[in-house]
């Protein structure tokens, strides 16, 4: 297996992109990544696209061919693959692309993630998110996506004493970062008080504990590490990856407060990267709800199990803390286009490791980790990215 580098990154703004269609945002992110990689698109061997629900949300299946076509490469007849793993679609697409380059099958691969949520109303968008849980045994009984995380939150509060205020700190921190991120869905900052007094969605989750539904796309260009310096001054190495799964239904998990898939995927990635959680400077995690960030930083072993809320409230996950979590603003602040999330997390870490994150730059960023989950943690993709000087 060969080492793999990221030599180009690109993304659209995340948010309500009323004027732009699915194919337009997909192409925009891809072209930016090509431009950033300073390579000719003719070099590409394959395209991987992560997408959750184009079939339902824009009534368009077969988006791999669609994106390739509108990128202008239909005459090259390149292989193009669409990957679906709920909101982990982007991460899993990256995993597949990584394997293809590492194995020697391809040299240059474009991996994108894209989702167009706002062509349908909120009700339909939420129904799509619900369908990533176990439709037959959770959703049909009236469970919403938020309600599943709410039950996880309630149990976490019961087992570890996590509080609603600690959860609110996740939202406050991530909005603060988002306010400094030009591509973020939200520009406003929040106070703990505002989060706590926002209207209930599924107790204890309130409106301001929830990530928004957003449109957006992100893309990265991969190539073998040995070629990377030819194209890029600061290639970022994919030092470790891990992909793991768990029961589709939250209720069937060994412990509803622990995402075993996250534990497993991160163990694999740490092992492959030959580092431990202590060496991680910054993390992009899947904060679809504030409780998710708390549980995930525990299960990535960035903090002790049960102390995610406390660590957040103490500023341990902010600049100057132990590990900076979601410097992009996360799903909560930067936005949540499900298929694009996993790739956008990588885009952020690459920017940070290159030292190009401007106002939200994490000082001394050398090792970053991303965590992209599908459903309530039934799929988890972890990548560890390193700057090699």
């Amino acid at each position, binding site marked *: 297996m060969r080492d793999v580098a990221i030599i180009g990154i690109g993304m659209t703004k995340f948010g309500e992109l009323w004027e732009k269609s699915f194919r337009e945002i997909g192409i925009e992110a891809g072209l930016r990544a090509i431009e950033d990689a300073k390579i000719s698109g003719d070099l590409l061997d394959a395209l991987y696209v992560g997408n959750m629900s184009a079939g339902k949300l824009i009534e368009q299946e077969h988006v791999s061919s669609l994106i390739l076509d509108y990128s202008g490469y239909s005459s090259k007849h390149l292989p193009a693959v669409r990957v679906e793993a709920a909101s982990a679609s982007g991460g899993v697409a990256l995993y597949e692309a990584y394997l293809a380059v590492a194995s020697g099958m391809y040299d240059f691969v474009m991996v994108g993630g894209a989702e167009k949520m706002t062509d349908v109303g909120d009700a339909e968008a939420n129904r799509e998110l619900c369908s990533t849980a176990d439709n037959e045994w959770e959703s049909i009984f009236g*469970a919403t996506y938020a309600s599943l995380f*709410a*039950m996880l939150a309630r*149990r976490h509060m019961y087992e570890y004493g996590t509080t609603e205020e600690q959860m609110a700190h996740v939202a406050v921190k991530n909005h603060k970062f988002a306010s400094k991120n030009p591509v973020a869905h939200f520009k406003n900052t929040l106070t703990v008080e505002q989060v706590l007094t926002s209207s209930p969605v599924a107790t204890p989750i309130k409106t301001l504990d929830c990530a928004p539904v957003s449109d957006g796309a992100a893309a990265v260009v991969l190539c073998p590490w040995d070629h990377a310096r030819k194209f890029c001054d600061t290639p970022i190495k994919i030092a470790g990856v891990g992909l793991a799964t768990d029961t589709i239904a939250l*209720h069937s998990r060994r412990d509803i407060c622990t995402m075993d898939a996250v534990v497993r995927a991160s163990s694999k990635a740490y092992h492959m990267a030959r580092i431990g959680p202590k060496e991680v400077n910054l993390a992009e995690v899947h904060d679809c709800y504030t409780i998710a960030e708390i549980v995930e930083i525990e299960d990535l072993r960035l903090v002790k199990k049960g102390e995610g809320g406390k660590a957040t409230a103490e500023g341990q996950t902010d600049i100057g803390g132990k590990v900076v979590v979601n410097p992009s603003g996360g799903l909560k602040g930067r936005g949540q286009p499900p298929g694009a999330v996993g790739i956008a997390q990588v885009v952020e870490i690459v920017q940070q490791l290159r030292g190009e994150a401007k106002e939200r730059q994490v000082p001394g960023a050398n090792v970053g980790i991303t965590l992209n989950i599908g459903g309530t943690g039934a799929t988890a993709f972890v990548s560890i990215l390193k700057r090699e000087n």
Partner: protein
Amino acid sequence: MQIPRFWRQIPNRYNLIGVQCENCKKVYFPPRIVCPDCHRLSIGKMKQYKLSDKGVVHSYTVIYEPAEGFENQVPYIMAIIQLEDGPRITAQIVDCNPEEVKIGSRVEMVFRRLGEDGKAGIIYYGYKFALVKTQT
């Protein structure tokens, strides 16, 4: 929902019919074709098993932004219930105020409407849960 999809689960949704692995005796709900512990050894040995209709609340939430079809029930209580026979399931808790529900509350199955395919379509029935109250 498509009619056959609901129809084939009627025994499970009406009466908590799950399966038991005859190899390790573990009970599963909803039914599984293969035992996640015994794998190959369980093939052909997953037998129908009627679960006890009692359990305790493992976690719960009060939903204010409803799933489609539940608009008229807002606010409603969803719970993960630990059944006596082992499996946990997700179901609504009805006939009580949210304040009455606690983690650890004892509940038992009741038979209620789960939803309908619009005003002209099929009505779906199945399990929900209610708090067990001391009877007078």
